[in-house]
């Protein structure tokens, strides 16, 4: 891009799906404002600056960097450190960068289990039991691929982060508002929030944005969405469908409950909560309508996957962060170099 004195913009994807990129593009006309106000200097999905070019940039020369994706492997981590150095404002963008996202569900397994599964599927022909080798001596020379780390991490678990923008992906109207704010701030017309803030989201819970009717909750049974015809106007939790709304940060306008399915927690914990799963657990347990331990157990059997349901998008950012097998594997790798 031309050197024309405009502040520099970068967007990078680590262990991500590309949905955050699409969400930025779904701001439609707003992207023209980005183009007008910034020099896009690094955005691998869209233009051809490379890692080498980023390394050559002076430190803090990138004004705004949107970093999405979790830290799954050595390359993701390298890019996190590199972009932190080169950027003034580093935003952990989307659920994966803020709390680990869906890739962090892998923290309930070790990488050995992940590789064994992938390389022994029913359709895989692998009689020699091959696994990907980070350093491989081909007939012509050594070729490399990144090393998978045992524990998936969020961005702020490897580098300091300036702002957090949750969502899977963050809703486009929120992205547009944030881009507007940054442009205004660069022009001296607005103030950026204090560092460490969550931006592009509300400070209440999804329940606050949800139009469904709410009464006193007394849950006698949990059911799965495919098991019942739901009342479209009534709170899903009251109907026995586990909904993450009570513990999830607002900002998305409760799209999923309005579409007939429960909130899945992609906007991360509400303001003031440091662990979304603990808060959701607490809220849900409070409204179970039983005082008998055996009956409580039977009711809880209706939530067959607590870890997944409580921490679906937020495992890496939770207090425990990963399961025992992942931690043991990491410890073992550290000791054996």
């Amino acid at each position, binding site marked *: 891009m031309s050197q024309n004195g405009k502040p520099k913009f970068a967007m990078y994807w680590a262990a991500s799906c590309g949905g955050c990129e699409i969400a930025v593009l779904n701001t439609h006309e707003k992207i023209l404002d980005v183009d007008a106000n910034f020099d896009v200097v690094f955005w691998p999905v869209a233009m051809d600056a490379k*890692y*080498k070019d980023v*390394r050559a940039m002076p430190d803090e020369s990138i004004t705004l960097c949107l970093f999405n994706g979790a830290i799954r492997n*050595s390359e993701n*981590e*390298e890019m*996190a*450190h*590199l972009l932190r150095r080169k950027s003034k404002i580093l935003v952990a963008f989307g659920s994966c960068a803020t709390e680990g996202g869906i890739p962090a569900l892998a923290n*309930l397994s070790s990488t050995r289990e992940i590789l064994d599964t992938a390389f022994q599927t029913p359709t895989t022909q692998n009689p020699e039991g091959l696994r990907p080798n980070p350093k491989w001596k081909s007939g012509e020379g050594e070729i490399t691929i990144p*090393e998978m*780390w045992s*524990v998936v*991490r969020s961005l702020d*678990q*490897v580098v300091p982060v300036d702002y957090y923008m949750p969502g899977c992906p963050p809703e486009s109207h929120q992205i547009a508002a944030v881009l507007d704010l940054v442009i205004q701030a660069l022009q001296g017309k607005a103030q950026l929030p204090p560092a460490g803030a969550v931006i592009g989201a509300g400070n209440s819970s999804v329940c606050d944005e949800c139009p469904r009717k709410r009464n006193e909750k007394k849950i006698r049974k949990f059911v799965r969405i495919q098991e019942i015809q739901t009342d479209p106007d009534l709170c899903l939790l009251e109907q026995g469908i586990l909904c993450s709304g009570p513990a999830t940060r607002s900002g998305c306008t409760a799209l999923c409950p309005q579409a007939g399915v429960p909130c899945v927690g992609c906007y991360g914990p509400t303001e003031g*909560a*440091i*662990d979304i*799963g*603990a*808060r959701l*657990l*607490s809220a*849900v*347990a*409070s409204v*179970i309508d*039983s*005082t008998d*331990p055996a009956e*409580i*157990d039977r009711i*809880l059997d209706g*939530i067959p*996957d*607590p*870890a997944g349901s*409580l921490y679906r998008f937020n495992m890496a950012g*939770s*207090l*425990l*962060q990963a*399961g*025992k*097998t992942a*931690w043991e594997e*990491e*410890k073992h*790798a*550290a000791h054996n*170099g």
Partner: protein
Amino acid sequence: MTETFEPVIIGFTCNWCSYRAADLAGTSRIKYPPNIRLIRLMCSGRLDPTFVLKALASGADGVMITGCHPGECHYLEQNYKAMRRYQFLQRLLSQMGIEPQRVKLVWASAAEGAHLAQEITKMVEEIRALGPLRWPSGDGAHTLAKEAAQASLTEVPA
């Protein structure tokens, strides 16, 4: 000579029953191990599961939650919330690979100083047998990965 592992247990006690029980144990000179660090809550129903996870992630080897007997809660029904949260939490912890013996729910009335002391003593020995948890919160175990990443950053590009 090997050092004996001294478990660190965080004990969340409710003001009206179990904290008073602990007090009673003290004034009655009933010994219980110093491994437990007591934190007083007004009610077991105040226990946010976040506290338990934070304790485990911050170095505790075990957590004890104590409250009034069912039916005797000073705030009427809130210890049932503690009961339900505890049951749900155990299911989560087992999925994460944390042994169920590390988190315990004990009912103790204000008069049951001896009973509480006994439960604490029992738990300390159970955890001693299990061994330390040393849940790797923070970046300790990740140093190697960080160093490797730093090294690659200083490679001279072609």
